């Protein structure tokens, strides 16, 4: 369960201060499928970075599965990113010159999973996203949709409860984007909590709840299914 209370994030670049989040509060229960929408610069990515424990809020509270994230040190944040959160990016962010199965293995390396088990599990995850036959290819040898599938397999490999995806279909054509959304739908059906950022209404409509951000504040929050 995610509980966010009056979350603020201020970026300081010398004298200039940008308040990306100006105090947001909401709760996301386990098993929800939430789309975060809003115009460019409204604070969506900042929100995702905080939820994914890649960054810490300037003020406010964030509880993830009952843990006060604000009180964690770098090491503990790394463990949460490794085990409790799976991140999917618009740019795919696969490691270049590294086979896709090795890419999927990365989170398991940092978890300390044995070599054999890593191989087995990477295979299993790639099969689940329909890429078992591409295991030994490098990322530059597969399509964008396939890259995003690899990224999803990688996000899932340590079996996190929460999947965060920042504009996962932003670099894909509509058809491929729909396929990726189908994958998220499946994962949600399996019980994963999913939060995706998008500015495409048709994509957002596939979620069960839409949170709208505007200028660092929540402008609307509605359940649609």
């Amino acid at each position, binding site marked *: 369960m995610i509980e966010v209370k009056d979350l603020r994030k201020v970026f300081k670049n010398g004298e200039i201060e940008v308040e990306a989040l100006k105090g947001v509060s909401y709760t996301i229960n386990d098993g929800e499928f939430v789309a975060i929408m809003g115009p460019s610069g409204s604070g969506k990515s900042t929100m995702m970075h905080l939820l*994914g424990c890649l960054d810490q809020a300037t003020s406010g509270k964030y509880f993830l599965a009952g843990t006060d994230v604000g009180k964690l040190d770098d090491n503990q944040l790394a*463990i949460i*990113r490794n085990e409790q959160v799976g991140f999917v990016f618009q740019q795919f962010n696969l490691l*270049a010159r590294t086979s896709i199965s090795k890419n999927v293995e*990365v989170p398991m390396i940092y978890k300390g999973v044995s070599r054999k088990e890593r191989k087995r599990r990477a295979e299993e995850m790639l099969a689940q996203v329909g890429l078992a036959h591409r295991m030994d290819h490098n990322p530059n040898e597969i399509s964008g949709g396939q890259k995003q599938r690899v990224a999803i397999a990688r996000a899932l490999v340590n079996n996190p409860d929460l999947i965060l995806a920042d504009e996962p279909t932003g670099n894909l054509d509509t058809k491929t984007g729909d396929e990726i959304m189908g994958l998220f739908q499946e994962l949600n059906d399996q019980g994963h909590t999913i939060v995706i950022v998008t500015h495409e209404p048709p994509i957002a409509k596939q979620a069960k709840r839409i949170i709208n951000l505007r200028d660092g504040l929540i402008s609307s929050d509605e359940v649609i299914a």
Partner: protein
Amino acid sequence: MIFETFRIAINGLRTNKLRTFLSMLGIIIGVGAVIAIVSIGSSAREEVTVQISSLGSDLLWVTPGFSAGRATRMESDPRENFTLNIIQYIDDYSPGVTNVVPEVSGSVQLRRGDNTLNSTAVGTSQDFTTVNIYYPERGRFIDQDDLDQSRNSVVLGSNVASELFSDGDPIGQRIRLNYQGRNINFTVVGVMEPKGQGIMGNLDRRVYIPVTTFTDKLSRQNFVDLYYAQFSPGFSSQEARNQIDYFFFQHLGDENLYNIMSQDQILGVLDQVTGTLSLMLGGIAGISLLVGGIGIMNIMLVSVTERTKEIGIRKALGAKKRNILGQFLLESLALSSIGGFIGIGLGYLGTYLVTRIGNWPLVLSPIAVILAFGFSLAIGLFFGIYPAVKAARLDPVDSLSYE
């Protein structure tokens, strides 16, 4: 985990082979230089040691010294107390030494018919051969009669013999010695075996005459350049030395008028010289290792910057600071240790070639290998720390958005 980190590090290096190699160059050269310098140094030392030992074993040298009080008197020759007649006394009063050999030498020109040859005439006694383990090949060496009667007998070094008598047996032949403008005829009584280059010069290019002939007819002064002696069986170098020292002090009354040197002392001096030299050259090699380390740091900093995005991705996937730190540290360690290995290979190759050319014994120094390799590892670690810490401290969000 360590193993995985190591694999990641090696893969990082493999992606840019040429740059990896170039950045290792400093370490390669540094390690190679250390190995080569130390090994060539010990090989050269070994060679000189063999030469000194081949001068004969268990030897003491007594040479003239300068007294502080007499140094101003230019007309006095420091050798003037080194007369021939004290040899008998040395033998009598110092049971610790036997075979006291006098030696006095000077440049001469040899002439036989139209052939001339520049050489060194050495005046010595019959014990010369035993002490130096250097014997005539044909004929005989100087004997007691030659000495007693100051005969004009000469024994030729092997080169002198072959150059002056390419056409036949020199024994019994006459040659003319020119010493400081004076011509004296000598009869060849023997030819020495080839001995080659010694620490005192090429022995094969010298001629040997009775020391009494030298002092009576060549130098016309009754003193010699030096004495040397073997210490008697059952006496240590120190005992023999003390006895000689006592004798000369009693005889001359001034410890500054003579110097006593033993073979182990000469080896000691040699050790000091080669040690200082090795230290100096080792210092230079050390500096090039340091430069190599800076090269590694430089390339690691570039690598960290280039791979900012990768670092961001790894952090997003759960890499802790220490994982990233370990990855880059291992990468610089791998750089420096691979460089170290190549350097050891090159250093050995260089040593091998130099010792082959100089025809020296090959002495590979395992300590130098361990030292150089350990040093290059330490440098990899030391100069890898800063870039690795920099990588580990990168902010995940910032590095993810780095293009």
